[in-house]
C-alpha cells in the first residue's frame, strides 16, 4: 500500500440512499451474480425444458382419463403448468440461494449499513424474477418448436399467461425467502423448501385435473393458489381470456409476498 502514506479518504457527506436506489443497486448486483457463471445460467435455462420433456412423456396417457377436458392435447394442458412451475422454481431458488448469499462477506457488510435490510432481499428476488422471464422465454420457444404446443390464445394470450405465471412464482417465492431467512444451514433450508415445493406443485391441477385427484388431495388443491394460477394461465394461453381465477391467483400471491417479505426481513435483520 505504498501510495497510502499521508493521504486519507476525503470526507463525504451523503444524505443516505433512497429505497429505490437501494433496490436498484442491489438488484443489479444480484443479477450480475446470476448471469456471471455461464454454466449456472445454461443449466437454469435447461431445467424447465427438461421438466416439459419429462412430464409430457410420462403423463401423456392422462388425456384418456374421464376428467380430462375434451379436445385439448396434453401438451397444451401441460405447458401452462410448466410455465407456472418454472416460475415457482425460480421463486424457490431465490430462497435457497440465499444460504450461499449469507456466506458472501458483502451481505455481512450490508447488515451494518444504514439501509433497509429488506431491500437486499427484494434485490435478490427481482433479479431472480428477471432470470425467470428468461427461463420462460426459452421454455415457450422449445414448447412451440419441439413439442407442438399450439396455444389458441395467440401471442397476447401467451404473454398475459406468462405474466400471471411470473407474478405467481415471484409471490410464492417469498415463502422460500422467509424460510431461508429464519433457518440456518444450506441443507436444512433445502429440505424445508423442498417439503414446501412439492405440495404447491403437485397438490394442484398442474398435471391432472383437480376432479381426478383423491379427495384429500383435491381439497388441498382447491386452496392452493397454484391451482388458480394454472387455471388462469391455461385460460389465457389457450383461450386468450381469463376470469376470476387470475384475480384470485394474483391477489393471493401478492398477499403472501407482502406477509412473507415482512417475516423474512425480520429474520434477515435479527441480531443476537
Amino acid at each position, binding site marked *: 500500500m505504498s*501510495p497510502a502514506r499521508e493521504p486519507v479518504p476525503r470526507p463525504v457527506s451523503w444524505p443516505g440512499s433512497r429505497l429505490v436506489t437501494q433496490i436498484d443497486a442491489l438488484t443489479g*448486483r444480484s443479477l450480475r*451474480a446470476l448471469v456471471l457463471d455461464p454454466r449456472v445460467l445454461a443449466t437454469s435455462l435447461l431445467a424447465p425444458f427438461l421438466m416439459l420433456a419429462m412430464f409430457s412423456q410420462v403423463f401423456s396417457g392422462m388425456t384418456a382419463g374421464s376428467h380430462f377436458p375434451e379436445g385439448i392435447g396434453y401438451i397444451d394442458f401441460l405447458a401452462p403448468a410448466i410455465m407456472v412451475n418454472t416460475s415457482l422454481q425460480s421463486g424457490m431458488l431465490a430462497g435457497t440461494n440465499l444460504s450461499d448469499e449469507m456466506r458472501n462477506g458483502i451481505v455481512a457488510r450490508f447488515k451494518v449499513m444504514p439501509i433497509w435490510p429488506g431491500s437486499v432481499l427484494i434485490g435478490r428476488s427481482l433479479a431472480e424474477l428477471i432470470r425467470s422471464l428468461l427461463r420462460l422465454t426459452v421454455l415457450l420457444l422449445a414448447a412451440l418448436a419441439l413439442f407442438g404446443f399450439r396455444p389458441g390464445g395467440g401471442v397476447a394470450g401467451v404473454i398475459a399467461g406468462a405474466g400471471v405465471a411470473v407474478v405467481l412464482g415471484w409471490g410464492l417465492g417469498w415463502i422460500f425467502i422467509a424460510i431461508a431467512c429464519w433457518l440456518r444451514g444450506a441443507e436444512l433450508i433445502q429440505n424445508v423448501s423442498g417439503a414446501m415445493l412439492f405440495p404447491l406443485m403437485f397438490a394442484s391441477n398442474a398435471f391432472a385435473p383437480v376432479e381426478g385427484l383423491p379427495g384429500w388431495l383435491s381439497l388441498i388443491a382447491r386452496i392452493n393458489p397454484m391451482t388458480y394460477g394454472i387455471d388462469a394461465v391455461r385460460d389465457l394461453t389457450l383461450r386468450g381470456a381469463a376470469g376470476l381465477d387470475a384475480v384470485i391467483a394474483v391477489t393471493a400471491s401478492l398477499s403472501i409476498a407482502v406477509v412473507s417479505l415482512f417475516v423474512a426481513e425480520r429474520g434477515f435483520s435479527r441480531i443476537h
Partner: protein
Amino acid sequence: MAPLPHAAGGGARMSAAIEVRGLAKRYRDVVALAGVDLTVPQGTVHGLLGHNGAGKTTLVDVLATRARPSAGTARVAGLDVVRQARHVRRRIGLTGQYASIDEQLGGRDNLVLLARLLGARRAEARARADELLQLFGLTASATRPARTYSGGMRRRLDLAAALVNGPRVILLDEPTTGLDPAGRLDLWRIVRALVQDGAAVLLTTQYLDEADRLSDTITVLSRGRVVAGGTPAELKHRVGRRSATVRFAAAADLEAAGRALRRGGFRPAPAGERRAVTVPVERAGELAALVRVLDDAGLEPDELLVADPTLDEVYLALMSDPAATPEAVR
C-alpha cells in the same frame, strides 16, 4: 482504566468516539462480556488485546450494532448503539476478521455499490471508488473479481470498503490476521494516517507488538472482563519490571550464578531459554551491583541483556495470574 476522564453531562459536552459502560453480553449460557468499561477519544487508537474467546469480537459486534447488549450501554459518536443503531451505522467503518466484500465483483464495483447504498449518486460513487482504489494501490486490479486478489489485496479492499462513508469511528477486528509483514506495516501506516486525520480507531488484535506500536491506550480482555488497561508504557510498568537476562555457555556457570545472585540479594528466575536467568533490575545501581556480584564470583556471562518487559510478558503475566482483577493490577 480510561486514561482520560470520561466526559460527564453538561451541554458543552464533547462526547468520546466510543464510550462503553458496564457492557455485558450473554449468548445463552456463554458469558461473552461481563461488564466492560471503555472510552476511546476521537483521534486516538485503542487496542483491544486478548485471547480467542476473550470477548473482543463480541465487543466490536455490539459497537457495530451487530449484537445487542444484555446489560450496560455503548455509545458511538455519542449515539446509543441500540436505540440509534441506524445513525451509528452511518458513522462507523468496520472490517471484520473475514473480508466483507463481494468476491465475484471487482474492487471498483464493490466500492461503487457501497457508495451508492450510502447515498452517493452514480458519478460520485465512481469517483469515490477510484479515489479509494488509488489510495489503497488497487487501481491496476480494479476490474478483476476480488476472488482473484491476494490476501493482502483483499484486506486492503475490505478496509477501503469500510472507509467509503468517511467514518470518524473505525472498528478493526483483527485487521492484520493473515497478512505478511509488509502488509501489516502498510496497514499500520494507514491506521496512523487515519488517526492523525482525527478518526478514532478501535483495533482488536492478538499481536502484542501491534497493540504496543499502534495504540494510544490498550485494554486487555480475558473471559469477557477487563484485566488491565492504560497506555502501553503504563501497562508495562504495572506488571513487568525492567530486567536483565544473563546467559551462560555452561550449565554449571548458570547454577553458580543463581547462587551468587541470591546471596547478593537478587531474585533470579529461569528465563525460559536454556542457560539464562532473568533478574529484575529497577535502577542503574542495581545493574552495577549485578555485574559486580557476577564478577566477584568469577563468572563471565556469554550475554547480558537489559530490557523493558515486552507486552507479551505483560500479557502472559496478567493472564496467568488468577488474582489479576483490575483492582489487583492497579
